[in-house]
């Protein structure tokens, strides 16, 4: 038997396969397909202080081996999360991780504070990287100062394990990562989507109602992987890697580049069972390659 359990500070993951925020709903939507409690963890859809309707339709464009979304943090707000959604997910027997977003530091702090009070929320992922909202969002994630400020504030408001999810739309990702590390983040999630655009040449109009949106899927994997590697060399806290993971070799690439765990995002849309299958396939890969403990792979580039 190989060991695939990993820890992210106090957060114990039975395996390094998590599902990415915004691509896995609240988890139960996938329970028709497999036993979701088998996952290392589920990062639920972003929650903001107030309810949000998100951006107008159309919100999606298909691109070569990827997609652009402009959902814009549609969600029913923290109150509804606490009163309603939480009850539906609190008994799922794996780590439920809240994804906290907002337009202001105060709003993010408020959501984090409320999430912190919920027993069965295992950790908080602070999203400072959403490209699809006018205020806040990515702006926090593209400035060293802002990234530090919001992380420090949220850190103060919660004692659960705090992951900070960075935007890849920056010149120097290591610099931002070091800032959030020094502001008290326990781990770094990397990457959110890349700001991108698609045009409908027949209509001569942008495909998305918001003109630009966030690119995800296999297309971005090589850039995401590079960023994980760069950040791994720059910080001491664990990294949760993501961006275009579709197969077990992708998972292993991220682990080797330095990720302690990974998140499966867009791939869930193509194959709703993929995250479950990858747990199995990771063990098979390790067996076939004589790897007894997944820690041998983490940062294990030769």
């Amino acid at each position, binding site marked *: 038997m190989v060991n695939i359990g990993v820890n992210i500070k106090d957060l114990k993951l039975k395996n390094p396969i998590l599902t990415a925020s915004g*691509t896995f*709903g609240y988890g139960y939507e996938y329970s028709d397909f497999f036993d979701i409690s088998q996952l290392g963890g589920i990062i639920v859809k972003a929650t903001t202080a107030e309810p949000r309707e998100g951006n107008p339709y159309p919100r999606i464009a298909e691109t*070569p081996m990827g997609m652009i979304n402009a959902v814009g943090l*549609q969600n029913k707000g923290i109150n509804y999360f606490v009163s309603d959604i939480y009850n539906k997910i609190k008994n799922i027997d794996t780590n439920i991780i809240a994804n906290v977003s907002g337009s202001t530091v105060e709003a993010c702090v408020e959501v984090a504070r409320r999430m912190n009070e919920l027993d069965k929320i295992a950790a908080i992922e602070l999203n400072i990287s959403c490209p699809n909202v006018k205020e806040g969002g990515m702006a926090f994630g593209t400035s060293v100062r802002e990234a530090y400020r919001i992380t420090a504030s949220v850190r103060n408001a919660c004692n659960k394990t705090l992951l900070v999810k960075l935007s890849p739309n920056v010149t120097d990702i290591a610099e931002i990562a070091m800032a959030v590390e020094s502001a008290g983040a326990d781990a770094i999630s990397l990457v959110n989507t890349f700001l991108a655009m698609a045009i409908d040449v027949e209509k001569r109009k942008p495909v998305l109602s918001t003109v630009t949106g966030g690119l995800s899927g296999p297309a971005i994997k090589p850039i995401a992987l590079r960023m994980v590697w760069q950040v791994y060399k720059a910080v001491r806290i664990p990294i949760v890697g993501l961006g275009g993971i579709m197969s077990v070799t992708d998972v292993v690439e991220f682990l080797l580049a330095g990720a302690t765990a990974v998140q499966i995002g867009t791939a869930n849309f193509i194959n709703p069972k993929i995250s479950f299958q990858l747990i199995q396939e990771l063990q098979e890969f390790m067996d076939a390659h004589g790897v007894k403990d997944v820690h041998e792979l983490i940062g294990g580039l030769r």
Partner: protein
Amino acid sequence: MKSIRKLTIADKINVEDNYFILKCFSAEALPEMFPGQFASIKVENNPNVFLRRPFSIHDYCPETNEVSFLIKIVGKGTCSLSKLSVNQQIDVILPLGNGFNLNKSGKALIIGGGCGIAPIFFLAKKLKSMNADFDILIGGRSCHDLLCYKELSGLSHLYCTTEDGSEGTKGYVTNHNCLIDNNIDYKRIYCCGPENMLKAVAKHAKERDIFCEVSLENHMACGIGVCLCCVTETIHGNECVCSQGPVFNIKDLKW
């Protein structure tokens, strides 16, 4: 319950120029499915198609484990699907979405246009099996767009309109007598087709306060209500066409 299936193509039937029917067979029992629900098909072997493609359940036979899709070739993915051949397999998630609200009270009218005729056939079969009283009205640009004419006419009264007058009444479905004639008293309208048609029918129904459900076709990524890409504006806010639809009561839409 939603599930991912490998279906084997039992038959591929070309219907008119740009349409074809994929008749699929499943070795295992298929889950129960209702008219208006859809499936999400993975398009393999095409580097330019990344996401699955949604198609209505056109026909479903629980006894033989068969399910069919009526597909219009409009782009990359549908073109790839049209090149599949008998005995090849497709990867399908089904059933998805809510389906129409079926009810026997009062006479119903089913309206379909273009590839909106796809779910209409399954719906009509189901209503017939319930002994419901209903008529069918299909519309298209020309007689070549009146798909499944023969099959549908075997199920009930079949009316039709064509824009060029090559068959049935000339004009749009909303120009057809059966909608205008006050002697025909439809209590329920089910409609699937291009958005213009849906809107015209919805307007007609609203003015007369007739129960009316329409099936929408927004662009989708996940098909199961998690990505929030396929939303339509409703009086309750943005709702997902894939999981809270594709069938909506027009009272809920902001049309």
